[in-house]
């Protein structure tokens, strides 16, 4: 009897410590030893890690205000929260470990022990058919407007609505309204079903409310809310963009200088993701620009690059100043005295080597070095049409080239999106510092962007690695003529053979 009791105690102790062990090893670094979301990593994150002590969870199947179910919590542990620092743990921890840590996380809040707080999942049903039809999307758009999604998410859904600069979470941290064009970054998943579930449950702890009352009060039918979800889904690409290493610039007769020139529609688009600059101080863990969409064409003598990126604000914009203040307050500064919040412009940099490398050696991707500088085009929303060309010799040293040597530029800011076209002659008069573009070569290229209204400025920016730009060579006419010629010849010879054979047959018959 006593040994059985001892065994119970032992197993119970082991079981509790199992979840705690997993938590301490894998979770506490961000979520903190006591689950208050205050681990050492927390001050480098926006959004910050979950504070488990309040039992307030974004991703649930339950009405706003209710606790999540175990399945809800397990899903967030398994899949992670897309678009945040929270990774999925399904492949890293065993089923048992994930269950143990789930049980342990629940001990941080007394709400889970309160028997009156039983979560009751919503019966969601399934999406009505015809979701991709023009009529469905029209209805979805109509209710997107009428139920006020645009107030935060903006007219075109890029998270640039009039209320966007004022948004805070429960702990007064700054929070972005989701950019609805990037469904692969939606915290709770990007399918129509995921979006609908978030509309019904809201994202507790954030400004995103539940819209279930609309259905309960009969202001909206269930189908109409599904249409909103389908409309929102339609704003993102069908598939999550795939990164391709080589940006092809086809040959064109004329160079499109305007960002919205119809000639661009026929050109292939490439997605280059950007990440925070965390190599040099001051490092930046919360970049606002998630990537750039790039198209390129060239003519016999010039090149045009069209760089498009989503940015919630046309900086400098003083209405975002308090937001910058909250960003700085949330993130730990690495400088002894951080800059005061200010209205900085938006910036975008295209980077090349000074000359096309002959081997695999390339300059340092992050703005080159003193011995191996890189050639850059620096575009700013402050000047818009006058990007500066220059040589970067490391992240903190940029030497502009002579005035007027920069590329020409045209820029459009449109509902949360910058579209910038940069053009330059292929040839260069100063081949020592300005890259001459050549066809048929792999030219290293990298991109950088900063959102001034997110406090980004200087080394606080989003960066890419090196990719390649290839100016496709004009295809020689013989490439097209040779196969046709070969076909004609083969056909002719074949017919000759057949004709000769028929001649012989008819000659024999006559015999």
């Amino acid at each position, binding site marked *: 009897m006593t040994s*059985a009791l001892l*065994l*119970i105690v032992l*197993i*119970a102790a082991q*079981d*509790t410590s199992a979840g705690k062990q997993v938590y301490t090893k894998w979770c506490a670094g961000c979520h903190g030893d006591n689950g208050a979301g205050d681990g050492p990593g927390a001050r480098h994150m926006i959004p910050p890690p979950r504070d488990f002590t*309040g039992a*307030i969870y974004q991703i649930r199947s339950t009405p*706003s*205000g*209710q*606790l999540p179910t175990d399945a809800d919590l397990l899903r967030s542990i398994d899949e992670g929260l897309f678009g945040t620092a929270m990774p999925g743990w399904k492949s890293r921890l065993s089923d048992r470990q994930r269950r143990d840590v789930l*049980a342990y996380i629940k*001990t941080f809040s*007394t*709400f889970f*022990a*309160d028997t*009156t*707080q039983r979560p009751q999942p919503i019966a969601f049903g399934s999406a009505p058919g015809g979701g991709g039809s023009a009529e469905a999307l029209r209805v979805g758009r109509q209710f997107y407007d*009428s*139920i*006020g999604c645009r*107030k*935060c998410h903006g007219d075109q859904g890029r998270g640039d609505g*009039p*209320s966007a600069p*004022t*948004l*805070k979470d*429960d702990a007064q941290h700054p929070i972005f309204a989701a950019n609805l064009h990037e469904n692969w970054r939606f915290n709770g998943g990007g399918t129509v079903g995921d979006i609908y579930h978030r509309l019904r449950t*809201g*994202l*507790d*702890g*954030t*400004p*995103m*409310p*539940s*819209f*279930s*009352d*609309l259905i309960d*009060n009969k*202001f909206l039918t269930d189908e109409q809310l599904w249409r909103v979800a389908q409309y929102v889904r339609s704003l993102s690409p069908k598939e999550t963009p795939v990164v391709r290493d080589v940006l092809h610039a086809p040959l064109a007769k004329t160079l499109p200088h305007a960002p919205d020139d119809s000639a661009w529609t026929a050109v292939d688009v490439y997605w280059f993701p950007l990440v925070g600059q965390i190599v040099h101080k001051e490092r930046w863990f919360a970049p606002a620009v998630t990537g750039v969409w790039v198209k390129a064409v060239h003519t016999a003598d010039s090149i045009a690059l069209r760089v498009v990126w989503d940015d919630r604000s046309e900086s400098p914009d003083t209405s975002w100043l308090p937001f910058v203040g909250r960003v700085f307050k949330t993130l730990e500064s690495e400088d002894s005295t951080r800059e005061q919040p200010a209205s900085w412009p938006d910036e975008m940099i295209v980077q090349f080597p000074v000359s096309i490398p002959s081997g695999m050696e390339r300059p340092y991707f992050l703005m080159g070095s003193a011995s191996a500088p890189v050639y850059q085009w620096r575009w700013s929303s402050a000047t818009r049409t006058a990007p500066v060309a220059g040589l970067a010799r490391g992240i903190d040293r940029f030497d502009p080239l002579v005035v007027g040597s920069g590329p020409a530029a045209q820029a459009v800011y449109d509902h949360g999106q910058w579209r910038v076209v940069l053009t330059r002659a292929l040839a260069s008069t100063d081949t020592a510092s300005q890259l001459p573009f050549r066809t048929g070569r792999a030219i290293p290229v990298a991109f950088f962007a900063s959102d001034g209204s997110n406090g980004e400025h200087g080394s606080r920016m989003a960066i890419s690695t090196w990719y390649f730009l290839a100016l496709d060579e004009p295809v020689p006419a013989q490439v097209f003529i040779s196969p046709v010629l070969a076909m004609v010849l083969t056909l002719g010879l074949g017919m000759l053979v057949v004709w000769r054979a028929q001649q012989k047959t008819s000659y024999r018959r006559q015999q």
Partner: protein
Amino acid sequence: MKGRIFSVVGGMFLLTVCSKGDRGTVQAAPPAPQPAVSSDPTAGAAGGTITGKIKFTGVAPKNPAIDMSEEAACKAKYKTTPTEENVVAGPANALANVFIYVSAGVPAGQTFTAPTTPVVLDQNGCRYHPHVFGVMVGQNIEIKNSDPLLHNIKAIAKKNRPFNVSQPNAGMTKTVTFAAPEVMVNLECNVHGWMHAYVGVRPDPFYAVSGPDGSFSITGLPPGTYTIEAWHEKFGTQTATVTIAGTESKTANLTFAAH
């Protein structure tokens, strides 16, 4: 032999299952305060009263003007530019919108029934009416939207479950209750960052909100010595001690310092 191994393994499995249950009870929190169910005969119109005036010293900060240019329907409800209601001052430095409640002195174990009439919280002209109010645990709060546009109502609470619901249409209503005493639960609209309301949730009816002239009155107190606390959204809290004997009326004036 095999059977024995199986029984040991099975036993351990059972023990594991049981131990999970044990752990649950071991780590259970103290039960949440129960909503009032039984009424107390001493709490009524009879009993003592505490009245007083809330004032402040110093200069009241100016309430920021609200830019309602994004919301024409709200803007049209005002003749002059509306302002926030952070500090609502009356004549002679009287202070309105102060939540005053008995924070100590009500005998433990005494329970009170929540009124059946709800408190109405109206969203009108992109502002909350009232801006500060009290409810009892379990008492209905009826939240209604009188504006033809989207408001969301987010409750930020620690002892109560928070929520965040939307009312995109005029005429929508929602009834909510709070299960635990909490001073204060913050209510806010994220669409309109200036919209804030504060609700004091109490287990007893001994609370009040100061009026435009700073006056308040708490009635029906049984004899005893009470601590009353006054809460203001910008100026913090003030306390006073009042002893009630019988059905008398006592005065407790509280003064905040503007900072």
